[in-house]
């Protein structure tokens, strides 16, 4: 005797959050049943594995039908097919679009293309996330990217409106989209210690200060592309390292300000010129797309690593960068105060976020 057909349909669509998570995690029905059995649900509910299997199948079927709608959340809200209470709708959407840290660290900054999608098996083996789940997360990235890529207006708001995500998740997607668009390198070994949250914070800073949106709130792609003009202008900062006098003056101003305030004063004094050169070189090269991609690698190589090897603590870094930025104002020969602050403000925030073990 075999069950040929087995369905359960509620007027209000019945959703089991645990099963939904298993489905999102890409488990097959059999695996999901096994996991549920292990959770002790059989004893709890006093039931049998076949009941559990039937229940799991039902849920999986419902989720598959919902998936089509989840691809465009406003549709899910408006559709008539499934009656779902709004808090549950919000939960379905939020969870569907939630991505996992190991996965996003693999994909962040990569081109969201077919090629990358083909490499997802490797990502799956490396991260121990099922291929199905990887594909879902990747497709989500790609879908969000495609929708908001060419939209006017603030990136986070666009994402929120089109995908009905929470503030936090919409912010994370903004970071993903921003990184994918500029193809920032995040996968190098040196960057492995950084979390997605670090990058998301940096992305927020970059979006706020370095994109077109920072100056013009109605431009196309305003939050996605960096302000080319600004990048062009950054070349003018070169004077801070090419002009010997300016460099010395800057150094002495910083040293005076920091004397007795930092533990690593001597190290700071000796490496000042290197550090300054590092930061300014990053700025002047940003006009080249390739160097934009390497922004984070450069920040780590040219600034964070030297500091770390001299055992600066976060407080030292903070004081140094503050003074380094502020003292430039006192340099009479330096005329690019605005540019300088737009550049250093963001770099400082990023470095501080990235300066940890």
């Amino acid at each position, binding site marked *: *005797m*075999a*069950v*040929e*057909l*087995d*369905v*359960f*349909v*509620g*007027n*209000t*669509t*019945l959703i089991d959050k645990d099963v939904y998570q298993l489905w999102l995690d890409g488990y097959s029905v059999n695996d999901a049943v096994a996991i549920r059995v292990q959770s002790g649900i059989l004893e709890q*509910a*006093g*039931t*049998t594995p*076949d*009941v*559990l299997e*039937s*229940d799991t*199948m*039902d849920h999986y*079927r*419902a989720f*598959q*039908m919902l998936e089509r709608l989840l691809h465009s959340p*406003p*549709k899910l*809200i*408006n*559709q*008539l*097919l*499934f*009656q779902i*209470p*709004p*808090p549950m*709708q*919000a939960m379905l959407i939020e969870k569907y679009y939630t991505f996992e840290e190991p996965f996003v660290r693999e994909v962040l900054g990569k081109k969201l293309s077919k090629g990358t999608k083909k490499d997802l098996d490797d990502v799956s083996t490396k991260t121990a996330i099922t291929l199905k789940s990887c594909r879902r997360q990747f497709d989500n990235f790609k879908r969000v990217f495609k929708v908001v890529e060419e939209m006017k207006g603030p990136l986070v708001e666009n994402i929120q409106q089109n995908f*009905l995500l929470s503030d936090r998740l919409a912010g994370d997607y903004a970071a993903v989209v921003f990184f994918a668009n500029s193809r920032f390198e995040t996968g190098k070994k040196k960057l492995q210690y950084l979390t997605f949250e670090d990058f998301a914070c940096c992305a927020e800073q970059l979006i706020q200060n370095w994109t077109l949106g920072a100056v013009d709130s109605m431009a196309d792609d305003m939050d996605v592309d960096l302000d080319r003009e600004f990048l062009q202008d950054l070349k003018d900062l070169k004077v801070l390292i090419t002009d010997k006098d300016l460099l010395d003056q800057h150094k002495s101003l910083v040293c005076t300000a920091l004397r007795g305030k930092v533990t690593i004063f001597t190290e700071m004094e000796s490496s000042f010129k290197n550090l300054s050169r590092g930061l300014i070189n990053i700025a002047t090269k940003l006009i080249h797309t390739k160097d934009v991609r390497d922004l984070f690698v450069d920040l780590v190589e040219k600034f964070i690593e030297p500091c770390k090897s001299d055992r600066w603590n976060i407080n030292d870094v903070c004081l140094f960068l503050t003074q380094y930025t502020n003292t430039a104002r006192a340099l009479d020969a330096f005329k690019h105060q605005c540019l300088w602050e737009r550049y250093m403000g963001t770099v400082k925030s990023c470095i501080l976020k990235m300066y940890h073990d």
Partner: protein
Amino acid sequence: MPGKLKVRIVAGRHLPVMDRASDLTDAFVEVKFGNTTFKTDVFPKSLNPQWNSEWFKFEVDDEDLQDEPLQITVLDHDTYSANDAIGKVYIDIDPLLSNEAAAILSGWFPIYDTIHGIRGEINVMVKVDLFNDLNRFRQSSCGVKFFCTMSIPKCYKAVTIHGFVEELVVNEDPEYQWIDRIRTPRASNEARQRLISLMSGELQRKIGLKVLEMGGNAVVGYLQCFDLEGESGLVVRAIGTACTLDKLSNTATSLLPPCSSPSKDMKEVPFSEDPNPVTHSSGPSTPLKNQTYSFSPSKSYSRQSSSSDTDLSLTPKTGMGSGSGGKDGGPLKALYRQQTQSAFEHREFPFFTLTTFPSGFLVHVGGVVSARSVKLLDRIHNPDEPETRDAWWAEIRQEIKSHGKALGCHAVVGYSESTSICEEVCILSASGTAAVLNPKMLQDCSMEGCSEHRLDDPLSLGCNFCHIPYDELNMPFPAHLTYCYVCRKQKVPDVLFTTIEPPLEAAVTGKGCLIQARLCRQKKKTQGEANATAISNLLPFMEYELHTQLMNKLKLRAMNALFGLRIQITVGENMLLGLASATGLYLTALPSPGGIQVTGKTPSDSSYEQHISNMQKKINDMIIKNREIYEINPPEILEEVLGSPIPETRQRSRLFRSQSESSDDVSELDLSHGKKDAFVLEIDDADAVEDIHSLLTDAPTPSGFYSCNTEIMPGINNWTSDLQMFTSVRVFRLNNVTSLTSQWLNKAFSDLCENLLKTLYFKLRSMVPCCLCHVNFNVALPEDELIQIAVTAVAITYDKDQAQYVSKVCTDKTLLRASAENEEQLQFTLELCMESQSTQCALLFSPSKAAEMTESGSLQPVTPAAQRATSVDYSSFADRCSSWIEFIKQKAQTIRRGSIKTISSLDKASPLAEAQARHRSPISCTTSTVVEMTPLSFIPGAKITKYLGIINMFFIRETTSLREEGGVSGFLHAFIAEVFAMVRAHVAALGGNAVVSYIMKQCVFMENPNKNQAQCLINVSGDAINFVRDTDVESAPSQSQASGLQTGNGSGDVVT
């Protein structure tokens, strides 16, 4: 030309991509009614077209208005090839024809295609301008209201219950016409859908005419069914109960004439009525609405009843004035009898499809009556003369009538009819409950009549209906009678089987539970006459066995009555399935059931005896356990602790009990098959072993769950508003049926049902504590080796904390909403309630109650009393103090009654309301209203403010890519979800927020996995209503307005 139908096509959304090249669609809409078609312009290149069409006007006969569905087709314009259909919407405009219902139908409807399912949505507005036709010989019956609800709808008062109406229409099934060979499956499905829609419209119109002829204005308990007879055609038949209904108003209705003379007003705008509605509990406060039909009800009234009756009915009125009506009981009874005779004699079939009645209507209940016949189908030659089918049913009804007479009853209530068809064999079944009704209520159910009746009836303790209607000395079958355990005056049977709901006034001990008997019988695969004979021969045995099973299971649960009994016998090619479902109860008036005794035939064998005694022990243990689970505490306890006012009764009851050990039931089922004692199970053969086995293997309901197949579960009153209606379908394949033993099949079938229930309990575990109500099983044998079981039910969460709850009851003003009480009585009840609050405390600390308290936990000391409660005899309230017991019972009843109606006063934030509130803030998209669906006739914790019309829909879905749609399960899952969605959309468009008395009458599923094909037909019906949650009652006027605005806005949005 009495009607103008106006249709406007506003917009579409989420349309499918029809042009692969552009990923867009050039959509336009065809609106068709009868033979007239209008078209909108093409809205190019959009998946969300805005047509904003003009109002298309159809000038039509009201006959057509009733029969024809409005057909809206969405198409994709194609310059070079034929336009592709995207899908259709069928709109039944019948709800717009009643003068009380919605004035406009407006909203988003799913665009449905029989091959692809739902493909986007379309926003449509429909209006009807109806001119009155005073022609006596007209063929239409516009304005007759139809209700699926099996009781008098909540916002109405029954003026007269006229009786049984039936009709059937037949036609050729388009699927079997020659043209079907050359047309596409889509065209064939659509032809079928349209034909059935037409036929059910016609059927409804014809029944409406009959109702008008009887002088009624409504059909309650309307039950429409399709018989897909295959080659021989398509039969649509319906039965119902004709009534004259009056809308309840908050002014005392008794002051007004029973029915004001009808006027020819045009329809009222829905928002203009209900000026100060729902704060009152006696139903919606709409002032008495005028009716549009042209017959004068007062005229029909006099036509219905002979002049002598009218004289008689005046007599008790004078008696009431003196307040000593009880003494007139004797002579009045005789008068009733006379009256009864005359009231029923002229009725061809004194049947009522209702299952719940206004109090005082049901006098006695005799037992279940049923009849079945096996027929061979042949082609219907002349669709205009469906005489054969008519004759078949007339035959069966005649049989039911005579069964009822044998039980000393003049009426049959809870009446229903069904068929089971396999190839050319058809089993017609009818069943009901023989009953004696109060004849006066048939002519005039106004409150006056009710209270009168109560006055002169000394026995309204909630036991009256249990008293035998037949002559004790001349019993139609061997039954064991005892004196009633409540009133001690009349005789009652030891077991009572009925097809109706437990009457509100019934005195019930403990809680009830779903009881099922399941049976599978093999038969040879034969043809024609031989097949029919084989089936006829099997039927009595199956009925007997089902009956025995029911009886054993009832005893095992220590209960003594079955309500809502439904025996379904399904015929297949090589087997017959029998499934009997009912809700078991312990009626306080009936004797406590004796245990089950197991005896063996060969006592010499000691191991055998050991085995038997083991079994006996198991059974005894289970009975004890069930008593605990269902809180069945013998009523004697109360009497003992309180000091019985009638001391000798205790003795007597003991005596009766010992006698009741061996007796038989009241049902008319074939007792001729043997005088076998129902309580003694002899395990001398394999069958008996199997019986016992099946008794013991029924899995117990998990804790936190109760289940019943009736609308309400006695003993649970404090429902919350958390409800979930669901449909579950399973199909099983039995391999090699012929090689299986019937024992194995029996067990397999039983396991299937048990497993299905188990799955439901598991799925709904988050709703605990909850009760599955109206659990309705439908069994079909779609193919040789397939068994299909479809279950529809509703799960309702209830509040465990009863004590906290009761205190709330008294402050709540929404008492007694369900019962049709007039203002005076209402106030009276409130008063009673206040008092009961204090006495309740007295009960709490009374040492005499200690025994009960230890049993039921300190939190709910009131419940046992409540469960044992009897109905309140309001008129004799003055001398209530004379009997302490009676007093308490009255209190308890009031509490219980109150609690039924104030369900959700506790849960302030009903999840849905909360959800809606939340919805508005974060996600600002247009909110589609939540539409509740329930098979019950009410929404717990809410008040029905308006009935918007009957929903009766038939859908076909077919696929030729079964695998791609997720196999049979994926296909059916999607289809059922689509059906729900379409029902909800129609209700929402009518301005409603729920469907009550929802039922899935048919779910015919056929598959051909080899061809990757499947087809399914689903027929659903229910009543669209608008309800207001009790918690929202205060803000109701503003809210209803807001919702009105909302619907207005919905369409307005699109226009701008």
